[in-house]
């Protein structure tokens, strides 16, 4: 049984007990425990069920390589599924639930899959559920979906907050083990800024925890001394609890910092780091050996067994057998023995080994069986005994050893995950049986120079002595490459040279295992991929490692193959009889450690998600019951409903008030781009389809812009302020686009033009005073004269109205007498309130964007984006008059001559009057002729002014069809008929606006 030792545990505080819940039961842990160590201390060996066969699984590792112990943590808005128990600190009253079982962890009905596993070999679902056709959708897939997935989906909104931090550094050191610390301090006095990130809460990695009694004191001293030096390095910043998780182009790196404690502050911070050079000291993973029944709870990585004793004073069992191919596992044996645990045997796959470590283990009286491995494990939900067999045999059991724990070690493999995120290549180290960073093929910075080096065990260098030798040397080389001189002299290596017996790279044991044994050997624990699955994939021709991975799902679980990749590759290699380096490996991709989506979103949620642009009049509209709509990044008042009004009543009221009285519109969102300079007129002649150079100062002219492909792009009124200054109005959504368009042409094509452009959209706000009473209303404000003789239609004037500076445009988008007042944005709210309160006798009322649209549709004015959709030319809109024939060139001129843009059957803008006056054609409704669509409605409204339905539409050969009646398909069964007319429905002569 697993239990807490009476003493020991460097990370726990034995005086501080912590209550927590596991699957509804109250358990006790200690301060400093991870959930995993607390569960082990409570003899909770069974902690989860596997993905496919729902097999019982126990804790396998002690870090982020853990494949089995995934938990649902927390409750309600704090609930998080798929959290590694090894990766999370125990907190008071934490609610922990195991996953993927029904009805309970110990009795899971879906473990029937396990009994049927022979039918569920790799890819079985590609081969079945094919007929009958409906069955997949209605029967099989729903069952598969329900049984797949691991943790439960959260149902409530996340209560935690997250934040992003940007950071620039010359050097980023990843990992603060002995390699990382040594590397970081080597940059002392170089003048380079250094950031050292460590995912753990402590420095030193495995340096102290993995040392034996003899080394312990030395290693401890070395660490202490190094940390003191590090502290004195002013150029080095250190972040603990910060896991580097992604490397992107040009030294862009992501790291997640886990904060704990303070409430109301962000619990996780995403660091976005730009580093000139990255020094990877990310350590190594212990690789398991694959053997029969290797997934039963109680089987654990040897290093994890050691970690649980060292850090938490917790034991996997009191009779622990080891199976290994290397010396490192002997450290676990000694650690167990030190703590009074019975180690019945070490099964060592090697023929012999005689290093000091091995000798010492033997001296302790531990039986070492060379050339042996595990051939069978008894026990269902926990290990009861193992069967010993010969490494080179077929798995016949020679002996049985009673035990309740198995520690397994296949040696260490470099953790080179980050190395390959951004193009760094790996090379196969045949002697050691692992992939390691290929320093000739590292990722590069913007300059094309290598921007990453790997040091320590992630580079395949494992002993302290060798690391201490490697790191300063490599850093010196790096500095030389950066043309920086280090003042540091090499220190004497404080470690002693260790003697190890060589590992032999073995991956699956016993070597002669037949099919019956291979199907009990798990490679990827979480996804239940067995040796037989990989073999079957290869048999069926899925020989590329990418195919085998996808066919079997090897390495695609939440641990991303940290424990399974190397073994999988070797199994494939063995089956195909091709060397491993020919098999290759799949690509590691970000993130190294999964990132919660909320952390990626950061602080930019809710109101900070695409912040809303608001006009100065927004606050007034808000308090006056505006209904809003988003327009580009802006929000605009859609309408201003009054009490007890339906929305259509509101719109009718707003429209009629403009037609009969006077309305106010906040049109501040209108784009305003100033174009100034000696060549401004020449430039605008190229930008607009019509001529702007002939526009006199003081006048306004409507203009259309096309793309080079000949399609309408934006429109608006241009005012000539002075001889060399034009103010170009754009659509509300288009101001940034148009401004960028001007800049692009000026900077990249016509850079010899003397023109400056400036986007003044937010500098000026605009209030439209619209309706037959607008002039009368404005007359009440002292200041510039607005008489028709002083300010005729399509002119503008500048001056003061009631001491507020304004530029008044006499233009109209409604067909009514209309003044558009541009004011400095600071004055907009004041002027608006003045106007609203100016004449109770006139009943000045605001109107919103929808009334604006109805008013302009009645007048037959287009809206870019409604009547145009990026495929419409000025000719299609019946606006030939605005396309200059005289100008030699303008943007779009060439394209407007292309054959397709001049075809007879193009869709053209027309007005539509339904025969049933009350029937409003639905939005987007299509016209049909003999059942064939011939065009569609672009704007459709009930016109309050005309008291009937009106619409605009783009209809094939529309201009020549004017006067005829065509069919509109309204729904599957209904049609409506409409007469095609000129698009101007209201005041065709234009008398009303020009009074």
């Amino acid at each position, binding site marked *: 049984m697993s239990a807490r030792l009476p003493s020991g545990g460097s990370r726990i505080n034995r005086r501080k007990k912590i209550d927590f819940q596991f699957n509804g039961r109250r358990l006790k842990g200690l301060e400093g425990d991870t959930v995993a160590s607390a569960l082990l201390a409570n003899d909770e060996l069974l902690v989860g069920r596997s993905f496919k066969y729902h097999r019982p699984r126990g804790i396998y590792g002690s870090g982020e390589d853990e494949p089995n112990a995934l938990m649902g943590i927390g409750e309600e808005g704090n609930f998080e599924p798929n959290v590694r128990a090894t990766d999370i600190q125990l907190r008071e009253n934490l609610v922990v639930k195991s996953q993927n079982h029904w009805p309970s962890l110990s009795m899971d009905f879906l473990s029937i899959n396990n009994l049927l596993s022979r039918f569920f070999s790799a890819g079985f679902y590609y081969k079945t559920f094919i007929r009958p056709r409906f069955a997949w959708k209605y029967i099989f897939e729903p069952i598969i979906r329900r049984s797949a997935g691991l943790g439960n989906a959260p149902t409530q909104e996340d209560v935690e907050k997250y934040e992003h931090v940007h950071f620039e550094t010359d050097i980023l050191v990843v990992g603060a083990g002995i390699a990382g610390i040594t590397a970081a301090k080597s940059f002392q006095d170089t003048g380079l800024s250094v950031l050292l990130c460590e995912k753990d809460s402590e420095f030193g990695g495995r340096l102290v925890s993995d040392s034996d009694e003899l080394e312990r004191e030395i290693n401890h001293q070395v660490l202490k001394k190094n940390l003191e030096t590090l502290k004195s390095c002013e150029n080095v910043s250190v972040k603990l609890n910060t896991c580097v998780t992604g490397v992107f*182009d*040009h030294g862009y790196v992501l790291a997640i910092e886990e904060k704990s404690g303070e409430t109301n502050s962000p619990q996780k911070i995403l660091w976005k780091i730009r580093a000139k050079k990255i020094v990877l000291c990310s350590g190594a993973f212990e690789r398991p050996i694959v053997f029969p029944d290797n997934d039963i709870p109680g089987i654990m990585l040897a290093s994890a067994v050691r970690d649980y004793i060292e850090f938490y004073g917790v034991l996997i069992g009191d009779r622990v057998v080891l199976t290994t191919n290397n010396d490192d596992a002997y450290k676990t044996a000694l650690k167990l023995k030190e703590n009074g645990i019975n180690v019945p045997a070490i099964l060592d796959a090697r023929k012999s080994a005689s290093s000091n470590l091995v000798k010492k283990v033997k001296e302790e009286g531990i039986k070492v069986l060379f050339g042996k491995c595990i051939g069978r494990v008894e026990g269902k939900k926990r290990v009861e005994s193992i069967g010993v067999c010969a490494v080179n045999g077929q798995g016949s059991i020679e002996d049985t050893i009673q035990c309740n724990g198995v520690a397994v070690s296949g040696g260490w493999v470099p953790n080179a995950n980050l190395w390959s995120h951004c*193009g760094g290549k790996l090379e196969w180290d045949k002697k050691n049986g692992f992939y390691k960073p290929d320093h000739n093929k590292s990722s590069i910075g*913007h300059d094309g120079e290598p921007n990453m080096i790997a040091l320590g065990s992630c580079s395949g260098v494992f002993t302290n002595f060798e690391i201490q030798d490697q790191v300063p040397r490599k850093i010196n080389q790096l500095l030389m490459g950066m043309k920086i001189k280090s003042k540091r002299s090499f220190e004497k290596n404080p470690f002693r040279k260790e003697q190890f017996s060589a590992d032999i790279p073995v991956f699956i044991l016993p070597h002669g295992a037949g099919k019956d044994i291979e199907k009990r050997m798990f490679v990827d624990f979480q996804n239940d991929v067995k040796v037989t699955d990989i073999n079957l994939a290869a048999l069926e021709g899925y020989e590329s490692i990418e195919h085998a991975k996808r066919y079997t799902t090897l390495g695609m679980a939440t641990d991303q193959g940290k424990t399974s990749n190397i073994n999988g590759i070797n199994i494939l290699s063995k089956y195909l009889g091709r060397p491993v380096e020919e098999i290759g490996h799949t690509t590691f991709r970000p993130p190294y450690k999964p990132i919660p989506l909320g952390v990626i979103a950061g602080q930019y949620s809710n109101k900070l998600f695409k912040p809303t642009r608001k006009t100065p009049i927004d606050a007034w509209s808000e308090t006056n019951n505006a209904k809003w709509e988003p327009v580009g990044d802006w929000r605009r008042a859609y309408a201003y409903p009054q009490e007890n009004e339906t929305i259509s009543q509101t719109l009718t009221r707003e429209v009629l008030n403009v037609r009969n009285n006077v309305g106010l519109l906040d049109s501040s969102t209108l784009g305003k781009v100033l174009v100034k300079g000696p060549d401004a007129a020449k430039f605008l002649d190229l930008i607009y389809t019509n001529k702007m150079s002939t526009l006199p100062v003081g006048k306004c002219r409507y203009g259309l812009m096309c793309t*080079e492909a000949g399609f309408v792009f934006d429109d608006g009124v241009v005012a000539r302020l002075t001889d060399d200054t034009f103010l170009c109005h754009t659509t509300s959504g288009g101001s940034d686009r148009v401004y*960028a368009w001007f800049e*692009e042409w000026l*900077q990249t094509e016509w850079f010899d033009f003397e023109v400056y452009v400036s986007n003044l959209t937010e500098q000026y706000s605009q209030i439209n005073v619209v309706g037959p009473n607008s002039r009368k209303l404005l007359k009440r404000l002292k200041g510039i004269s607005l008489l028709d003789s002083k300010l005729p239609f399509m002119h503008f004037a500048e001056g003061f109205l009631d001491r507020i500076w304004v530029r008044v445009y006499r233009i109209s988008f409604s067909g009514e007498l209309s003044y558009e007042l541009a004011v400095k944005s600071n004055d907009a709210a004041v002027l608006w309130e003045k106007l609203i309160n100016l004449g109770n006798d006139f009943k000045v009322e605001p109107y919103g964007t929808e009334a604006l649209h109805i008013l302009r549709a009645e007048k037959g004015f287009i809206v870019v984006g409604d009547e145009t959709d990026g495929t419409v030319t000025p000719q299609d809109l019946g606006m030939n008059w605005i396309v200059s024939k005289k100008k030699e*060139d303008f943007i779009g001129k060439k394209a407007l001559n*292309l054959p397709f843009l001049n075809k007879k059957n193009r869709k053209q803008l027309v007005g539509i009057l339904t025969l049933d006056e009350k029937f409003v054609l639905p939005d987007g409704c299509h016209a049909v002729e003999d059942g064939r669509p011939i065009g569609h409605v672009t704007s459709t409204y009930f016109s309050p002014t005309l008291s009937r339905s009106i619409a605009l539409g783009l209809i094939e050969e529309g201009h020549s069809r004017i006067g005829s009646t065509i069919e509109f398909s309204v729904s599957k069964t209904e049609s409506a008929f409409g007469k095609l007319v000129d698009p101007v429905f209201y005041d065709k002569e234009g008398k009303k606006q020009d009074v």
Partner: protein
Amino acid sequence: MLHIYCPICERYCDETELVCGGEAHIIRKDVTNNDQEFYDYLYARKNFKGVTFERWRHLFGCGKWFHVSRCTINNQVFGSYSIRDSRPPKSLLTKIKRLRVDFKGWIK
């Protein structure tokens, strides 16, 4: 996440400050050209796999356009130069040839 040098600000900029404007040194065509030439101008692109020359704008910065030479395989950046240059500067081409054996010279 590219890091590209803005020759106007004289500093490296994060990609998020910039927008890419596509292939560089395309000569505008107008009514005097035939439809095929106009197609070449408006749509046909080299889209090279390897060393390319393109236009970038420091949108959230100085707002200026400039030229950049970059490799579309590994994102190595060879240099930035003026938007007014109608072809890559000789010194840059020499540098690229030195750095990249696969570069056969600038193709118009």
